[in-house]
């Protein structure tokens, strides 16, 4: 074999890597791999928040989330991006009636959380109280807001870090949901 031909190998390797990096640039970086993806929901049983007309404060557990596709959104009043995404969530939840929106109020002041939902409207069917962040740890939360798509069998199918808006909903959430269906 011609020895000079061997000297091309580093160049070829480099071009392959460059192609890979180019591919990497084109993708959506806010979709974060989660160790939980395609795994069942962590087991939990936590109290729910009463606010406005909702006075039911029964415990919510993993079992309650099975039977339909649910969107689990971790939020808190102390988190500015949560204020930004809130109106979108309200709008989307009104449009997407077949999805169950579950809020997890993450390490928050409960009175402020109530006030927040009463003032701005609530996209959530239920709000789970995660006062000490225990559930956040089980979900591998990096911060708020984060949103998970859970299928009817209680398997986490997708994790999104950061704010949700219309564009993100259409481009990343809708494809995942239609695939589950």
């Amino acid at each position, binding site marked *: 074999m011609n020895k000079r031909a061997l000297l091309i190998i*580093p160049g070829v390797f480099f071009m392959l*890597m*460059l192609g890979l*990096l180019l591919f990497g640039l084109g993708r959506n970086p806010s979709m974060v791999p989660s160790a939980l993806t395609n795994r069942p929901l962590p087991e939990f049983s936590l109290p729910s928040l009463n606010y406005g007309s909702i006075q039911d404060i029964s415990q919510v557990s993993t079992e309650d989330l099975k039977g339909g596709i649910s969107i689990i959104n971790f939020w808190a009043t102390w988190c500015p991006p949560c204020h930004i995404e809130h109106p979108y969530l309200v709008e989307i939840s009104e449009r997407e009636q077949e999805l169950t929106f579950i809020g997890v109020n993450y390490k928050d002041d409960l009175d402020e959380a109530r006030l927040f939902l009463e003032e701005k409207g609530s996209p959530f069917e239920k709000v789970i109280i995660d006062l000490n962040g225990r559930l956040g740890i089980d979900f591998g939360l990096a911060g708020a807001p984060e949103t998970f798509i859970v299928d009817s069998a209680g398997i986490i199918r997708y994790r999104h870090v950061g704010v949700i808006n219309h564009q993100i909903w259409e481009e990343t959430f809708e494809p995942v949901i239609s695939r589950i269906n």
Partner: protein
Amino acid sequence: MIPELGNFSLILAFCLASLLVIIPMAGAITNNQLWMSLSRPLSTGIWVFMALSFACLAYAFLNDDFSVNYVARNSNSLLPDRYKFAAVWGGHEGSLLLWVLILACWSYAVSLFSKNLPMDILARVLSVMGIIIVAFLLFMLLTSNPFERTLLNTPLDGGDLNPLLQDFGLIVHPPFLYMGYVGFSVAFAFAIAALLSGRLDAAWARWTRPWTNAAWAFLSIGIALGSWWAYYELGWGGWWFWDPVENVSFMPWLVGTALIHSLAVTEKRGVFKSWTVLLAIAAFSLSLLGAFIVRSGVLTSVHAFAVDPERGMVLLTIMLIVIGSSLLLYAIRAPVVKGSASYTLTSREVFLLINNIILVVATAAVLLGTLYPLIHEAIYGEANRVSIGPPYFNTVFVPLMGLLAFVLGIGTFSRWKRTSVAYLKQQLSKILIASLAFGIIIPVIVTSEFNISAIVAVVLALWIVFSIAKDIFDKTSNKETFIKGLKALSLSYLGMQFAHFGMAVTILGVCLTSHYSVERDVRLAPGESEIIGSYEFVFEGATLQQGPNYQADRAVIQVLRNGEDYITLEPEKRLYFATGAVQTEAGIDVGLFRDLFTALGDERGDGSWVVRIHYKPFVLWIWLGALFMAFGGVLAITDKRYRSKKIISDSKETTKVKANRSTKPELVAQS
């Protein structure tokens, strides 16, 4: 006015760099002495204007000029002055400015300490560095100008520096890291210049060695500082996370280590030339890859700057041009003729080759693990993203380093050309027995448990230390006293032994901390305590404290040793006003043989808190080892050989070089 001056200096530096690319290179091709000699003043000019530009941005930060967008985003009027200064490199644009400034510093240093260098080589080297400066200045001026201003509606106050970065670590970590990263551009430029001129010889290797050592020493310290910073600032008690951004700083270090060893073979024996050139190109290419990964957001990381695909595109283009053309040049010009020197299977050449193979395989493994999420996604689609964690890296990397440590011991005694197996056996048998015996007995006696991984680590560390000690004693035994013998040894030899000793120290630190750390997360009410070994940690409660731009819950943890007062640790949990971010500040008692680490978690009502208490034996040794390595690198640079007035040529090509212009010894590390 000042920011405009800074911007203008950047543009001037860009113009000078463009001239540096064209004129000296054209001079080298046409053999025009005047054109070539312009490389020195041009490098000086670039350095002056980059420094001026940097000073202007620092001025804007220190004077709270929030009309400058970059200052408004990364500073705040309440920020202490030292952090205002460090905030210059706290974001993408400013850290890029620092990157280019350091590049300019290196090329200025080359122009200063190059009295021994033939003019055409110097002209080519500085021209190649000029290409990189031009590319990055263009990138900065077009997409990331730190001097952009908002003159109407100037913000009243800034958005504040990321609290994670408000720390002594930020002041020192990036400059050292960049000195290392960017320093490999010198070895790169020398390699390209050698390929262009066709003079790939021992002299080339000798010129490259001190620069490579210097960059490598800076990078060693930079990585160690980053690791130490993560340890006390992130509040997890971890010191290495195999995060993509850590990996991209580690890969140039691994390849740089291989390069240092390969350069030794090329200089002394004139073999492995093509391989050495490839390593020089690879080390700097990996630095560029690092810049790309940190600044494009292509991989998710705790360190990444704001995600911007457009910047990524520009950086990718720079990589394509710089690395692509150098690899093309390599394929065309690298020598394929086998070096004339011969060597046998147990020669020093071969042991250094094994060192290179291990280090390159380790680099490839880290690269694969870092890029694997992308590869996986390219094959299986977006829905199946994966992340590669420490289990993969530890499984692959740790055994390779074990092997490296083993070969290191043998390599110490090997000789150039050929070493007889009998000689190696005679030299090594006692060392093997001693390191096995002490390595097994000491951990078992001290801890009264049999932990096989810890024993392997201690055996390997002792193996290195004993072989260093024996080699030094052998080499000094012909002198009347040990001290006289030591003085007779060359500084580059002592530098090598220091660096190898550092490796043993780091191995011990890493392995013993990993295996013997005690970690507790406990809930403590005031007055309650937690006992680890002979230490008792008494939680005295937490109080609210005011800082300049934050408020903090500060806990007081009284530590008793054997029931007696020992020290008070005060871990903090800070809330920064401007960003609303929460940041932990660990309370650590640093010791040579163990650290006591405490961090404050969440309050649980009734005055009790979650407190993280770690007992970490030998953790300091991780960074101590890095210091030894860096010191070894610096010591090797100061060797007389590199400062000789004449180039002692051992190949025909360099004999025609007129290199005796030097007036005084010049080539010393600029550390």
